[in-house]
C-alpha cells in the first residue's frame, strides 16, 4: 500500500502552479465594505464570509491549464462542474483546460466552506465572477504591457489574449507569471460579461467534470482515502442516544485475527453538537476484521434518560400537544373570531416520521493525529466543523488541523455533522498517531444518524359562504434541531418555523401559526430541505382537502389562496430568517409562485381526462428562496398498487447557471420525495432505532421511481436578479403532490407518512 491519495498535496500544488506562485502576501478583502455592526446577509453573513481574491482560488500553469480551487463540497449537485463553467466563462478560458481541485478546509483563508442550505451557487456566483474577471483583467494588462498597446485594444478569447489590430495572441500560460505580479483590480474596476456573451453559463448538457473518474471507479470519495500504514476501525455506539458504556470486555474481540486495539470513547458532554456518541472502538488491519472484532465485544450499556423513547407513544404526545394552543409564531388578524363566524370549518392532522439521510457512502473518515497536529481525509459538508472540533479536542491550533476534502457519496445533511471524523481522530490518537480509517456500517448509519425531526401538523381553516378561506390556524409540533446546541428549547427555532410554516404566502386575512412544545429524545439534525418537508406536506395536503370540501378544483383553489401577484416582506410574515438572505433582495414573490403552479399545471395537462384509477395532484412551495410546483400523476390498481407514470416539476430559482445539473437535482428531489412519502420511516422502540439496514429502512428503487420526470425551468435568464437555491427546494412539494394525486385517483386521503400499505384493500 504505497499510494497516498492524490488530494494529499492539494494545497502545496496549487501554490506551485501559477497565479499564486511567488512570495507576495495574499490580500484578503471582503466582497462588500459592510460596516461591522451592519447586519450581513447571504454569503457575507456566513461565518468566514466570502472571499474573492483571484490569487486564493485560481492558478494558471505554463501550459495554459487553469486550476480552480473549489471551496464547496461536491456531493452530487455538480458544483465542481458548475463552478468551472462560471470561471471559464468569465475568464474566457477553455473549459476543457480548466481543472477543479477541492480546497482543503480553511475558513480563514478561503471564506465560508459550509456546503449546506442550497447556498453554493446562490452565494458564489457573483464572487466567482469577480475572481475570474479580475484574473482576466490582470492577464489583459500583462499582454497589453508586453505589446505596448492600450489595454482597451486587447481582449481575452479562448484561453489567451489577442490584439485585434496586429493579430498577435499570447496564451494564458505565457502571461500567467507576469499577470500574477500585477495588482488585483479593485472591485469597482471589474468589467463583467453580459448574459448574451456567455459561452458556458446557462448552456445545457455540459459534461460533468468528474464523468470519467466516476464511470471508471477512479473517483475518490471520503471512504476511498488510503494513507500509508493506516489501520481500520468501527465503533460500537450506545444503542440509545444519551446512553454510555457501563463496562465492557474486549478479550474475545482481541482474539479475532487482525484486531489491533479496542478503545473506549467517552460520551459527549452537553451540548452534544456534532460530538461522537461515545462507545467502544475496534481498530484492526482491515475493515472486515474490525467488524468481526466488534461483534465479539461484550458491552453493558447504561441506556440513560431516553431508554423509553417509543415512536408510537411519542406520536400520541405530539398529537396531544397539537390539540392545544401553543407558542404563537405568527398572528395576522383575528383567527379565533374568523373561525367562530366562518360558514364552515375544516381541520386535519398530518404526521411525518423521523427519517435518515442514508447517503450511499456511509459516514467514513481517515485521520492521523500526532503531537504536530491532525490531518483528516474525509467527505464532509463542513470542513470547518472538523477543524474546530479537533483543534479543541486535541488542543492544537486550528491551522494545525488539515482537512482534505474528498468527494461525498451523497450528503443530504448527514455529512454536515462530522462526528465520524472525530471518531477517526480519536482512534488515530489512541494508536499513537497511526492513521486510522473509521467507517460506519449501514447499520451504524441508520441507527446513529442525526435524524430528520418527527412532526404532527394540525391545520384548521374557516371558509365563508362562497368557499373562500377567511381563517387559517396551523399548529406545528416537532422536536428541534437546536437541542443539539443548547438545553432542549422544546420549540422550533425561527429557522425551522421559517421553513414553510410562518412564511406562508396565502392571502388570508386571519392567519396564525402556533408551535406547542416537543422534547427531543434523539439526535435531530437536518435532512435535505429540513422542516419544509412536514410543513409543506401538511399545508399542501390541506389545500387540496379544503378545495375538495368546498367543491373546487385544487389547482384553482391553490391559486386563489396564493392570491394576486405581489411582493411580501419576510417581516410581514414574522419570518426572522429568510434563509439568511436580505429581505430587500428576496421578497416572497407570489407572482413567481403562481407562475410555477401555472407552468406545472399546463405542462402536466391539468384537467385532462384520465383513466379509472388515475389521478393528478398538485403542490407548490417556496423554500431556499426558490419556487417549485409539482404535478404528479398516479395510478392506483385494484389492490392498491401504486405506480407513478409521470411527475412534472416547474422550478424558478432565478437565473440558471447549469441547466443540466438543476434538472438532475429536481429529478433526484422527485425521487427522494417519493421515497420518503412512500417508504421512509425511522422509528424508535425502547430508545433504539428499529430499522437496521435497507430491508427495514427502504428507499425507492428504480422500479418504484416515476416512469417519466419532466422538469420545466422558468425565469432562467434573470441574471439581473439574485439567485435562488437548487439542491433542496425540489423536495418539499413532492410528498403532498403525491398524496393529492392518490386522493384524486381513489379517494383515499393520506395524512400519515409513509404511505406504505395504506392503500392496500382501501380502494
Amino acid at each position, binding site marked *: 500500500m504505497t499510494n497516498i491519495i492524490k488530494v494529499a498535496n492539494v494545497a502545496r500544488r496549487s501554490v506551485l502552479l501559477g497565479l499564486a506562485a511567488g512570495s507576495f502576501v495574499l490580500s484578503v478583502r471582503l466582497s462588500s465594505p459592510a460596516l461591522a455592526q451592519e447586519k450581513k446577509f447571504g454569503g457575507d453573513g456566513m461565518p468566514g464570509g466570502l472571499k474573492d481574491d483571484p490569487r486564493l482560488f485560481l492558478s494558471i500553469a505554463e501550459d495554459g491549464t487553469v486550476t480552480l480551487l473549489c471551496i464547496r463540497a461536491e456531493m452530487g449537485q455538480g458544483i465542481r462542474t458548475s463552478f468551472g463553467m462560471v470561471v471559464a466563462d468569465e475568464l474566457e478560458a477553455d473549459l476543457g483546460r480548466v481543472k477543479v481541485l477541492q480546497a482543503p478546509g480553511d475558513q480563514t483563508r478561503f471564506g465560508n466552506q459550509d456546503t449546506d442550505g442550497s447556498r453554493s451557487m446562490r452565494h458564489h456566483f457573483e464572487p466567482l465572477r469577480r475572481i475570474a474577471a479580475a484574473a482576466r483583467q490582470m492577464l489583459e494588462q500583462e499582454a497589453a504591457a508586453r505589446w505596448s498597446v492600450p489595454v482597451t485594444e486587447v481582449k481575452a478569447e479562448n484561453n489567451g489574449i489577442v490584439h485585434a489590430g496586429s493579430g498577435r495572441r499570447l496564451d494564458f500560460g505565457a502571461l500567467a507569471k507576469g499577470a500574477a505580479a500585477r495588482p488585483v483590480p479593485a472591485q469597482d474596476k471589474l468589467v463583467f460579461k453580459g448574459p448574451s456573451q456567455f459561452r458556458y453559463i446557462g448552456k445545457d448538457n455540459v459534461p460533468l467534470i468528474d464523468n470519467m473518474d466516476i464511470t471508471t471507479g477512479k473517483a475518490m470519495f471520503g471512504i476511498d482515502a488510503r494513507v500509508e500504514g493506516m489501520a481500520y476501525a468501527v465503533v460500537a455506539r450506545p444503542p440509545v442516544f444519551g446512553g454510555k458504556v457501563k463496562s465492557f470486555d474486549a478479550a474475545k474481540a482481541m482474539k479475532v485475527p487482525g484486531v489491533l486495539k479496542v478503545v473506549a470513547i467517552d460520551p459527549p458532554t452537553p451540548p452534544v453538537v456534532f460530538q461522537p456518541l461515545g462507545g467502544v472502538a475496534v481498530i484492526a488491519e482491515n475493515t472486515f476484521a474490525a467488524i468481526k472484532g466488534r461483534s465479539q465485544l461484550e458491552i453493558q450499556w447504561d441506556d440513560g434518560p431516553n431508554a423509553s423513547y417509543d415512536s408510537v407513544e411519542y406520536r400520541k404526545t405530539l398529537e396531544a400537544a397539537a390539540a392545544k394552543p401553543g407558542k404563537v409564531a405568527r398572528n395576522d388578524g383575528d383567527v379565533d373570531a374568523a373561525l367562530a363566524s366562518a360558514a364552515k370549518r375544516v381541520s386535519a392532522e398530518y404526521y411525518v416520521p423521523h427519517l435518515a439521510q*442514508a447517503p450511499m457512502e456511509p459516514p467514513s473518515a481517515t485521520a492521523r493525529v500526532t503531537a504536530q497536529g491532525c490531518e483528516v481525509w474525509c467527505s464532509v459538508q463542513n470542513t470547518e466543523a472538523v477543524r474546530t472540533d479537533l483543534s479543541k479536542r486535541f488542543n492544537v491550533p486550528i491551522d494545525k488541523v488539515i482537512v482534505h476534502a474528498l468527494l461525498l457519496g451523497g450528503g443530504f445533511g448527514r455529512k454536515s455533522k462530522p462526528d465520524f471524523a472525530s471518531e477517526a481522530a480519536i482512534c488515530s490518537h489512541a494508536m499513537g498517531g497511526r492513521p486510522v480509517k473509521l467507517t460506519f456500517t449501514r447499520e451504524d448509519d441508520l441507527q446513529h444518524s442525526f435524524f430528520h425531526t418527527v412532526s404532527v401538523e394540525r391545520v384548521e381553516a374557516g371558509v365563508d359562504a362562497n368557499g373562500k378561506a377567511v381563517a387559517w390556524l396551523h399548529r406545528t409540533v416537532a422536536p428541534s434541531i437546536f437541542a443539539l446546541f443548547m438545553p432542549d428549547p422544546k420549540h422550533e427555532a425561527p429557522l425551522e418555523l421559517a421553513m414553510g410554516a410562518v412564511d406562508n404566502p396565502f392571502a388570508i386575512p386571519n392567519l396564525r401559526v402556533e408551535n406547542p412544545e416537543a422534547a427531543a429524545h434523539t439526535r435531530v439534525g437536518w435532512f435535505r430541505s429540513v422542516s419544509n418537508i412536514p410543513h409543506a406536506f401538511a399545508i399542501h395536503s390541506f389545500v387540496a382537502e379544503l378545495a375538495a370540501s368546498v367543491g373546487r378544483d385544487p389547482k384553482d383553489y391553490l391559486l386563489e389562496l396564493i392570491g394576486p401577484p405581489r411582493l411580501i416582506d419576510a417581516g410581514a410574515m414574522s419570518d426572522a430568517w429568510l434563509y439568511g438572505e436580505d429581505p430587500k433582495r428576496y421578497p416572497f414573490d407570489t407572482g413567481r409562485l403562481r407562475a410555477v403552479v401555472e407552468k406545472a399545471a399546463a405542462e402536466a395537462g391539468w384537467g385532462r381526462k384520465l383513466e379509472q384509477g388515475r389521478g393528478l395532484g398538485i403542490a407548490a412551495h417556496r423554500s431556499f428562496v426558490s419556487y417549485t410546483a409539482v404535478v404528479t400523476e398516479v395510478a392506483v390498481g385494484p389492490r392498491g398498487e401504486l405506480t407513478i407514470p409521470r411527475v412534472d416539476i416547474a422550478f424558478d430559482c432565478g437565473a440558471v447557471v447549469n441547466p443540466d445539473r438543476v434538472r438532475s437535482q429536481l429529478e433526484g428531489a422527485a425521487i427522494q420525495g417519493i421515497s420518503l412519502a412512500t417508504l421512509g420511516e425511522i422509528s424508535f422502540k425502547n430508545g433504539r432505532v428499529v430499522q437496521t439496514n435497507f430491508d427495514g429502512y427502504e428507499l425507492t428503487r428504480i422500479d418504484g421511481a416515476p416512469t417519466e420526470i419532466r422538469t420545466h425551468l422558468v425565469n432562467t435568464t434573470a441574471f439581473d436578479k439574485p439567485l435562488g437555491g437548487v439542491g433542496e427546494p425540489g423536495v418539499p412539494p413532492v410528498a403532498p403532490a403525491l398524496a393529492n394525486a392518490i386522493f384524486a385517483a381513489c379517494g383515499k386521503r393520506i395524512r400519515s407518512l409513509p404511505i406504505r400499505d395504506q392503500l392496500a384493500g382501501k380502494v
Partner: protein
Amino acid sequence: MSKFTVNGKAQNFTGDPETPLLWYLRDIVGMTGTKFGCGRALCGACTVHVDGTAVRSCQIQVGDIDGQAVITIEGLSADGNHPVQKAWRELNVAQCGYCQTGQIMQAASLLKDTPKPTDQQILDAMSGNICRCGTYPRIRDAIKRASGKA
C-alpha cells in the same frame, strides 16, 4: 489459500478466508472502485463480475472463489470506454457518483446477457441497485442508449 484473478491479475490470499471480496478488494488490494453500501446485498454498490456473472462482493467470501475470475469496475474496459460507461457519460447520469460503479457493473452484465432489454427487463435487472440521489430515469435511458452495443 485462495487463488483467483482480479482483472486478470493472479491473487494469492492467505488471510481469513471469510473475508468478503469487497473488503479484500478495498482494504487489502487497494482497489476502491468497488463500493461499500450496506454489507448485506441490499443495495448493489459493491457489484462485481465473478466468472462473468454480476454478484454482490460483500456476500462473496474470498475463500469461496478459488480458481475464479473477478472483474471490477477498474477492469470493465481497458480505457473506460465500455458502451455502458460511454452512455453514462453522454447522459450525465451521475450525481454524487458513489453507487454508479455498481450500477454500471450491473448494467454491463444485463446487456451481456440481454443485449436489447425491454423496459421491464431493465427494471428487473436494476432494482437491486439503490441510488439515493435518484438518477434512475437517466440510468434507464443510458442502458437503452448502450443496448445493442455492449
